[in-house]
């Protein structure tokens, strides 16, 4: 029974050590969520080498805290600065910043924080309830089925997110290629090692992830260092009024309903549910005149959706070992680092780890509410750190972490080369997430493919032997073809980024006659 096991998880989570790691996780997560360009994926990647010396339970509690915290932190900058810290917070900025400008910043922050809490709690409980069921369904999964699942995740992540399916697929290809480097496990052949002996073990995931996220981002920021500072709104006005609360409850619940299942799907991530939630609230609202001018529904819905999605992403990760977002992929790499392969057996073999993790998520969620509601102003102060200091620190951590993995100077060279690749990807608008998912899920998918082919004596027909794999492969094909057809038929689809720019939301407003709630406190 899930609930009794969850109670056991609480007993383990409420130790001083685990509470401390949950606190470290949510504080770090909020901080990186606030800082634009630095997200939970980069942070977890930077911390991977540090945690190899930790207990797995403590490490995963911290990582999950970072993941949830990032979702909270992103909303603060979206609302007060109109600078979404994370792509999943872009929709929040649309209405949230308008609310702050008209002196309702505190209400916007409150509905975001409470909505995140409500959604995070419901979705985490759903995770606890759904996970055992999914495991029961997944226990009979064949290697061919798993391969089909991975193919669907690859294609969906590459084509559905981002502005261009082609760029997503190209990025996926980069990741899959980097994942191939090393010795083939079955035949012992060396692949793409360029005769360099150190490469026969493959390129360490830490090095690639840190290079793509941290070094790539640092170089990209350095390439456009001098930009005008943005205007910070006061978190002014009252926290939720009765009518604010009444208008927020529906969007919170609907946002959760979008976020959790969509986060759990292979094309996971939080962008699409926030987008859908915003569009829905805009249609359902009784105050359509307020949309575009600071409607509280437009903050409550997307914020609930992105937190629910974060919990949803954990469903395929913990039950199938299938990462559907960049952060989940890196958490999967952390599992592999401990020699744990997430999958249908995880819930039985590492039962206490999983339930402690889920209990910690609920505790961390409460911590985040306490941390974020009164302290929004403190988090914004982080943004006064000059970028050169910030990124110098990140680069130092990146180099230290990459070197620490194998104590091999070659890793530093790889870090720089792949970092340049990460810079080029950002420069030319290639999404980074498909590359990371390709890198980490690629070898797992390959193992399953080879196993399936071995079972079927090399007959490719084995891949479409079960209905499950047939359906998944058809879905993958659709995920590949439909966006391209839609583009041909309807023209380009607007991404959330473009929506934000297109609707006249700029970082610095010209001297418009919006009044600020400075004198109203």
């Amino acid at each position, binding site marked *: 029974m899930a609930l009794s096991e969850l109670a056991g998880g609480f007993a383990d989570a409420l130790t001083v050590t685990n509470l401390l790691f949950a606190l470290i996780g949510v504080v770090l997560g909020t901080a990186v969520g606030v800082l*634009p360009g630095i997200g939970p994926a980069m942070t977890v990647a930077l911390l991977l080498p540090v945690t190899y010396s930790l207990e797995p339970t403590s490490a995963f509690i911290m990582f999950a805290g970072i993941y949830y915290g990032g979702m909270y932190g992103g909303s603060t900058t979206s609302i007060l*600065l109109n*600078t979404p810290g994370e792509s999943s917070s872009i929709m929040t900025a649309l209405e949230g910043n308008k609310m702050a400008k008209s002196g309702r910043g505190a209400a916007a922050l409150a509905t975001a924080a409470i909505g995140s809490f409500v959604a995070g709690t419901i979705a985490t409980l759903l995770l606890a309830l759904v996970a055992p069921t999914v495991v029961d369904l997944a226990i009979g999964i064949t290697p061919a089925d798993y391969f089909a699942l991975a193919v669907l995740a690859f294609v969906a992540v590459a084509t559905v997110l981002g502005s261009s399916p082609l760029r997503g697929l190209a990025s996926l290809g980069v990741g899959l290629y980097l994942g191939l480097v090393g010795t083939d496990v079955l035949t012992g052949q060396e692949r793409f090692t360029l005769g360099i002996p150190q490469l026969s073990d493959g390129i360490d995931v830490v090095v690639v992830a840190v290079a793509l996220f941290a070094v790539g981002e640092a170089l990209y920021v350095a390439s456009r*260092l*001098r*930009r*005008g*500072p*943005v*205007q*910070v709104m*006061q978190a002014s006005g009252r926290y939720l009024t009765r009518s604010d609360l009444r208008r927020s409850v529906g969007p919170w619940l609907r946002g959760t309903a979008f976020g959790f299942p969509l986060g759990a799907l292979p094309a996971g991530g939080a962008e699409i549910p926030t987008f859908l939630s915003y569009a829905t609230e805009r249609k359902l609202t009784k105050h359509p005149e307020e949309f575009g001018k600071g409607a509280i529904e437009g903050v409550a819905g997307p914020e609930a959706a992105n937190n629910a999605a974060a919990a949803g992403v954990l469903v395929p990760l913990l039950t199938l070992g299938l990462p559907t977002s960049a952060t989940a992929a890196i958490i999967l790499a952390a599992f592999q680092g401990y020699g744990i392969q997430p999958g249908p057996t995880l819930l039985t073999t590492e039962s206490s780890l999983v339930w402690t993790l889920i209990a910690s998520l609920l505790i961390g969620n409460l911590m985040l509410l306490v941390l974020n509601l009164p302290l929004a102003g403190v988090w*914004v*102060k982080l*943004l*006064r*750190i*000059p*970028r*050169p200091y910030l990124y110098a620190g990140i680069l130092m951590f990146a180099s230290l972490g990459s070197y620490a993995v194998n104590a091999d100077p070659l890793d530093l060279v790889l870090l720089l080369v792949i970092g340049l690749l990460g810079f080029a990807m950002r420069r030319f608008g290639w999404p980074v997430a498909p590359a990371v998912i390709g890198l980490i899920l690629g070898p797992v998918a390959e193992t399953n493919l080879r196993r399936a082919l071995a079972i079927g004596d090399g007959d490719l027909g084995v891949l479409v032997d079960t209905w499950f794999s047939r359906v998944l492969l058809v879905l993958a094909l659709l995920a590949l073809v439909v966006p391209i057809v839609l583009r041909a038929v309807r023209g380009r689809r607007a991404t959330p980024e473009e929506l934000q720019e297109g609707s006249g939301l700029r970082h*610095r*407003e010209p*001297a418009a006659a919006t*009044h*600020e709630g*400075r004198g109203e406190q």
Partner: protein
Amino acid sequence: MTGPDRVVVVGYVPTPRGEAALAHGIDEARRRGARLVVVNSSLGDALVDEEYVQGAAERRLRSELTASGVPAELRQPVGRDVADALGAAADDTGAELVVIGLRRRSPVGKLVTGSAAQRVLLSVDCPVLAVKAPPGREEGPPAEGL
């Protein structure tokens, strides 16, 4: 630029010492029959710079300048250090006086972080008037809020 050829440059920040510099700058410009060039710059290396006036604070500053009756212009260069920005504005306009605000610093604090005021004093060619915030309104760390 229209207005008189004589120019007084003021380095402005939205803090008591900046307000003091602005008040003295307005007095000086009025006495000399000069126009005022108010410089509020940001190095632009952090996402948030509370000494760079925007939005309501900028409107307040502009209306204060209008109310003073002295012909004034606000310049907000981004990407240069304060001393460079003030020096450039002074050279550019042939200013006869630069007014800056000072804050009290401990010798150790100055040793650690250096001093923008000192760089202005050493690098600007024309006379520099350095004023402090009125007693009782002195600052520690940069002001909170906006």
